[in-house]
């Protein structure tokens, strides 16, 4: 009997134009989303590699000049000397011997590599720069941190697979289920069906089964196709673990919307009323609550204005410049190892810059800390309030799965800050000692290696959102599961 109803429902659905229209839209939407997500990721990757290879080519040129200089010195037997910083071709040792010029005037880029599924959920990666320029002397907080993109496009947001799953899939699901019982009720066929040896529970389950099977098979199938076409690192198991999580999240999220439709149908209103209620529920859960949470987060914990930070940074810079002698002395007092032999203090602008950068950074560190605290508070508030909306939980989950979450970026930033210190120390030390760089030294420059997070860390961060979705699903499904026996079949 069970199978019979499922078969009948499937056949009935296949006869209606609505199913085919919905499936066509779904296929088109996911294909478009995969295409644009893939474009977005490859644009980022290209940006990172263009920037890095330009800077690497600069250093290569410096190295070549230094090697030529070394050969010349060896041939003529003169001293191997340190060049002062200058910006036009001239006589004397090449710029490549000056650690300040190499470390301070070329940048090295540290990059956050995208995960295999990055194209599925863009998250904030169209706003935040996934590759950061590191130079000696310049604090990371004062360098560019935003990707270059048309603000109009940023305002609209990405048409990624996450958007299709979070926004559109529920609409498609609700369009197929909003009149699950009410249409049979309105046509008067419900009572006739139930006159047969079939319970309402069974009827409902089979109707649901027919719809859920079609939609979910199509969605997971399309997800797989999307991964195979725009996913990367397909040979690593981690990509497939992430895809497994993607399927679980998508199934739970979809089932929530099916359950919600059943729940509303059990109240026995007309199809039109059910449609209104479900459209309203979609609006509240997917649009209104998320924007309200965002509004509360930014109102309760406003991040201090970057404009104030700019003024303060300048104040500190002015103070540092006015006390240049003092700050240089303070710097040398802290770093006795850098005082050049014979104390011929090379007061060129880079030494001063290096000294004042330290003073400025010290003056600003409490301000940066304030930024960080507020951002953490905002993030914490969103984490706590996410349970109010399945769409928010799903967005956080999908960003985590695709590796575009705020926390993964935060971890990358910390690695970048640590590397900046390493890069800075390496070049500042050589520069302040006026120790000329040899071509061979170019091989010992610090190299950034991104340390991927442990997968368990990812799972741990994912757990609240995923479990929250599951609990919500069970909660919503519970009501019809127990309430179905009270459904009034007779015409009213």
């Amino acid at each position: 009997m069970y199978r019979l109803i499922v078969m009948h429902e499937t056949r009935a659905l296949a006869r209606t134009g609505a199913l085919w229209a919905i499936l066509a839209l779904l296929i088109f939407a996911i294909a478009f989303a995969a295409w644009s997500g893939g474009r977005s990721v490859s644009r980022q990757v290209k940006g990172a590699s263009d920037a890095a290879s330009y800077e690497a080519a600069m250093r290569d040129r410096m190295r070549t000049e230094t090697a030529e200089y070394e050969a010349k010195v060896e041939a003529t037997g003169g001293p191997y000397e340190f060049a002062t910083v200058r910006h036009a071709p001239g006589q004397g040792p090449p710029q490549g011997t000056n650690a300040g010029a190499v470390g301070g005037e070329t940048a090295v880029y540290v990059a956050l590599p995208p995960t295999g599924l990055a194209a599925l959920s863009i998250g904030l990666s169209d706003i935040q720069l996934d590759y950061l320029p590191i130079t000696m002397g310049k604090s990371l907080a004062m360098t560019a941190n935003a990707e270059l993109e048309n603000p109009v496009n940023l305002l609209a947001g990405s048409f990624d697979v996450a958007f299709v799953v979070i926004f559109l899939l529920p609409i498609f699901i609700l369009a197929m289920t909003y009149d699950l019982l009410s249409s049979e009720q309105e046509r008067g066929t419900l009572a006739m069906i139930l006159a047969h040896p079939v319970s309402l529970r069974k009827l409902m389950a089979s109707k649901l089964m027919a719809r859920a099977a079609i939609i979910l098979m199509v969605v997971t199938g399309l997800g797989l196709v999307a991964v195979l076409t725009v996913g990367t690192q397909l040979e690593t198991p981690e990509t497939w673990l992430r895809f497994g999580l993607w399927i679980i999240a998508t199934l739970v999220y979809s089932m929530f919307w099916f359950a919600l439709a059943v729940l509303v149908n059990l109240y026995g209103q007309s199809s039109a009323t059910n449609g209104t209620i479900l459209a309203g529920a979609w609006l509240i859960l997917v649009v209104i609550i998320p924007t309200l949470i965002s509004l509360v987060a930014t109102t309760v914990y406003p991040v201090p204005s970057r404009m104030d930070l700019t003024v303060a940074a300048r104040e500190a810079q002015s103070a540092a410049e006015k006390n240049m002698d003092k700050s240089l002395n303070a710097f040398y007092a802290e770093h006795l190892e850098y005082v050049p032999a014979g104390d011929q203090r090379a007061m060129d602008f880079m030494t001063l810059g290096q000294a004042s950068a330290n003073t400025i950074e010290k003056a600003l560190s409490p301000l940066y800390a304030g930024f960080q605290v507020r951002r953490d508070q905002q993030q914490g508030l969103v984490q706590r309030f996410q349970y109010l909306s399945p769409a928010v939980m799903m967005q956080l989950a999908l960003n985590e799965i695709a590796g575009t979450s705020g926390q993964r970026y935060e971890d990358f930033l910390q690695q970048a800050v640590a590397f900046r210190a390493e890069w800075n120390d390496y070049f500042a030390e050589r520069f302040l000692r006026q120790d000329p760089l040899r071509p061979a030294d170019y091989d010992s420059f610090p190299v950034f290696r991104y340390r991927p997070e442990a997968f368990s860390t990812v799972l741990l961060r994912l757990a609240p959102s995923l479990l929250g979705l599951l609990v919500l699903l069970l909660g919503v499904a519970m009501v019809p599961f127990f309430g179905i026996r009270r459904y009034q079949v007779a015409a009213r």
Partner: protein
Amino acid sequence: MIRIIARKEFAEIVRDGRFMWTAALMVLLLLTAMLAGWQRHGSYMATQAAAQGATNTQWLKQGDKNPHTAAHYGNYAFKPLGPLAFFDNGVTNYTGTTVFMEAHKQNFAIASPAADTSAISRFGELNGAMILQVLMPLLIIFLGFTAFAGERESGTIRQVMSMGISRTSLLGGKALGLAAAVLIVVVPCVIIGAVFIAMTDLPVVGEGLVTRIALLTIAYLAYAGIFLFLTLAVSAWSRSPRAALMVLVGFWAFTAFIMPKTAAEISKAVHPSPSYGSFMAAMKAHQARGFDGTPPWAELGKFQGQMMRKYRVSDVKDLPFYWTAVRMQRLEELDQRVFNQHFGAVTAAYAAQRRLQDRIGLLAPTLPLRSISMGLAGTDLIQQQKFQDDAESFREAMVSKMNGYLSKAAVSLNGVNSASNYLIANEDVFAIVPPFRYQPPALATTLSEHWMNFAVLAFWLGAAILLALLGVQRMSLERD
């Protein structure tokens, strides 16, 4: 007769439970959004004014130093917001608020608010414009989808028609009734918004506030009209209320959620713009290579020869101006051509993307309305571009004034300039650079960019009315 129908329609809608709930939700959200927007706008403008004042003072009080070093120290431009940003924040969250203006380098506006928010901000911002663009159409749909379809299902439409009323009058009555129901929700909120503006004592950036508000009102009324007549049209055409609801909610999701993103993705593919890394690599390489292939140092050598021939001197130290300063200014001008080309290409790509998206508005009325609303509120791309252009003009003037002063004041140092012997200027010299002032684009500029969007909205309104007229004419009075 139209009035009677309108009164009946209005009374029926208002007495329906749907109305209470949706209207209450709408009013609550609109007030919350306006209040939050007003508060945010006020604190932003206060911060901006304070920051601009502070950096202007810092420029003057930077301490005695060489004028060119002062140009390196530079100044900052902080963007003031448009007069109606509290209502429509537009692209503000996604644009830089701060431009560093320094010698030798053109910089992008940095510090966009979005870079400091969490991923949830991508769900959008709850502001007055968002509510009117997204929620108001749904309110209209919810209140109106049963207008004809419902009456046909309950059979009352035959009775109404038997009174001898024309179908057009029936449509007119229904439209008036529905419009009244929507307006009693929206108008009080708009009035409260106007009170907010009146209460603000913030300096108004951009002229023609009254014209802007009037045009905004017209645009939003047209937008509401589009949904009102589309709702009535679909209600007349469709077989049942639920079919009408399906079609209308589908169209609403299409125009309010799907199309803005789709248009953005299409425009990105048609008019690609470089990422930060590609942009910087290309521009720096071009700068080192020289604008037309001659490296800057070679150009400067040529320039030196020209100057020496022109003034008939055999040594730079005999030139009648301070050579170092003129040379730096020349380098500035050489770099400027490269900057203009690369920054200009990005600007052009963004403008092309924006225009294409506006044109896609022929498929979705939310797109032209969004553009008009941002434009009139002073929070769109055109304003942002003007801000960056103003900052760049300021930068060029600042650098050229400092180099120019140096070239005249330090003539005696020609040939003997060194790290320990150079001209020191004071506050009086720095004061020849007037403080940065952002001049927002004139209302006429904004309008000339947007007349097409007004035309598209008018086209949609006309089409919707036509569909509704056709719909009632062809409407069957029988239940299926």
